[in-house]
């Protein structure tokens, strides 16, 4: 404190600069400014440096390396790897299992997105209309969101088991005919897992939609009331059109998340039965690690990354446009 008191008159910025540039009698304004910016840049990079270095080494570098890896025939271990150019990609486009995984991935995320947007939207607007218990409902809806994916996977595997809760519930309402081992049946396994994934994520979309609904101009609802609109008409004519930007954002976020699905499938069916739950991430993991075919696994990962990147760029553009 004492030395700051003494230094106040001397340590103005101009004084500092003159001191540091004593060899040149009168630096031009441009020079001075440039030097100041250089010094500031140095300080800024000192702050950003540690994180940025970690990020460059452990995210950007592997990303670049992935594209290189995809041009080799390599088991991941041996010091010799054979350069094969685009052969892995040629093989990829002719690989029926890759396309199966891609289509499964699309089906999985369509179910996930539809459920979370529709149920999320309806639930959020119902929640916005009630006075009491809003917080407790929101707490309950959000509990699955903070669960580990492995918990979601195991609890739902148990629910879907032949002697599980799903069949017990269906029997109790007289639907004995459709009971089955839901994850063992190739025709239902993918949809069943998508519903489990939706369970773990819909609470988040409810919260995002709630925030959107609270931002809607109340006078629109008052006008709808004056016009004699019922709850359903108000929902379709006021809430949904007003929330269109929010719906787009949730849709894209869920899509990006849905494309990256790995945990819940790996912890339950691992792609089976007969490839019915194979998605891009599990297929890449199997070919890369399980079959030790790093080149081909990398090619799948490149395709996978390009798809996610496109969806992500669209979502960023849409969000930027919404903010304006």
């Amino acid at each position, binding site marked *: 404190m004492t*030395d*700051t008191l003494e230094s*106040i008159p001397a340590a103005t910025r101009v004084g500092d600069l003159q001191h540091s540039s004593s060899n040149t009698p009168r630096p031009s304004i441009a020079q001075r400014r440039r030097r100041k*910016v250089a010094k*500031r840049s140095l*300080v*800024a*990079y*000192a702050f*950003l440096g*540690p*994180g940025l270095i*970690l*990020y460059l080494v*452990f995210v950007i570098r*592997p*990303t670049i390396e*992935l594209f290189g890896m995809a041009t080799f025939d390599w088991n*991941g271990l041996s010091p010799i790897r054979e350069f094969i150019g685009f052969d892995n990609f040629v093989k990829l486009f002719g690989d029926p299992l890759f396309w199966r995984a891609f289509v499964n991935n699309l089906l999985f995320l369509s179910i996930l997105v539809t459920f979370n947007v529709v*149920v999320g939207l309806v*639930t959020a607007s*119902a929640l916005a*209309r*009630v*006075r009491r*218990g809003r917080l407790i409902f929101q*707490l*309950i*809806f*959000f*509990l*699955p969101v903070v669960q*580990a994916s*492995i918990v979601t996977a*195991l*609890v739902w*595997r*148990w629910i879907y088991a032949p*002697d599980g*809760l799903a069949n*017990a519930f269906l029997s109790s309402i007289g639907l004995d005919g459709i009971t089955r081992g839901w994850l063992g049946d190739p025709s239902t396994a993918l949809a069943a897992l998508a519903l489990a994934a939706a*369970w773990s994520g*819909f*609470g*988040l979309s409810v919260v*995002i939609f709630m925030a959107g609904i609270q931002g809607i101009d109340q006078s629109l609802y008052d006008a709808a009331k004056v016009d*004699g609109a019922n709850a359903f008409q108000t929902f379709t004519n006021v809430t949904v059109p007003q929330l269109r930007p929010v719906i787009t954002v949730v849709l894209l976020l869920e899509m990006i998340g849905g494309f*990256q699905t*790995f945990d819940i499938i790996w912890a339950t069916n691992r792609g089976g039965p007969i490839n019915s739950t194979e998605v891009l991430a599990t297929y*890449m*993991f199997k070919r*890369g*690690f399980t079959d030790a075919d790093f080149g081909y696994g990398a090619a799948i*990962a*490149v395709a996978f*990354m390009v798809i996610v*990147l496109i969806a*992500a*760029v669209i979502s*960023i553009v849409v969000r930027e446009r919404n903010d304006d």
Partner: protein
Amino acid sequence: MIETTAVKATPAAKTSQQARRRTLGQRFPGLALYAYLSIVAVFAIAPLILAWSTAFKTRPQVVENPYGLPIPPTLDNLIEAWTTGRFSVYFISSLVIALASVLGMIVLASLAGYGLARMKFWGRRFVIVLLLLGLTIPVTAIILPLYTLMRDLGLLNTYASVVITQVAVGLPFFAFLMRAFFLRLPNALEDAARMDGASELRIYWSVMLPLVRPGILTVALLQFLWSWNNLLLPLVFLTGESVRTLPIGMLLLSGRFTTDYGLLSAAVIILTFPVIVLFLFFQRNFVAGLASGAVKD
């Protein structure tokens, strides 16, 4: 409007039906809404209650009374999972990794966020675009080169491999989050401290950082949640018995004892308990943080 529709749709039955519906709605306002919300709430919480109650049941109880309450409750499953199931070891691993990951992220993300928010520097735009790119790179897609990188660095089967990757992958998101918090602070504070001759580091540490405590709390909670629940990175990097985390322990347990629901449920409780306690205390921070754009994975 009302008159014309009434004239057009004259059937008496229909109007009386409408009247009845209206009176029911008037007598119990919001009844349908509460009914719907309750159904959704049951869907959300029933699977969790099923797991939590089954953890306290003996094997015969699970078979005879799969969906009832555990009466009398037993702690056998929890004890078995904790001791012979080695979940005490997995718990420590998970805790060490999560705490290191949180600490690393708080330090690096707040430094980076501060630099991005309050400093002008060469290449600023480039750095921002580079970090934005990181928001879109899925960690699943780069897991193969990450594995070979960790192997070449000799970091496989060390906590460091998982901690470093978790911090590096989450850095863009949390740096932008901290940036938003730092942007809200007034310039006057910074200028005053600079006039007093404080160094940049001192301004950051003593003046600005204490003012973004809510941001740091959000970073800590979300990074803890993500690290604690993370399956993929420990699955790939940690293959040794002694460094396994809880999700991996649970994955192995579920493969070995597919139908021992009591034991599996006990594992669910051990894994979810810390997260649920944190969530109940900091509900608002979790909800706001996750809704701000993080994609759950």
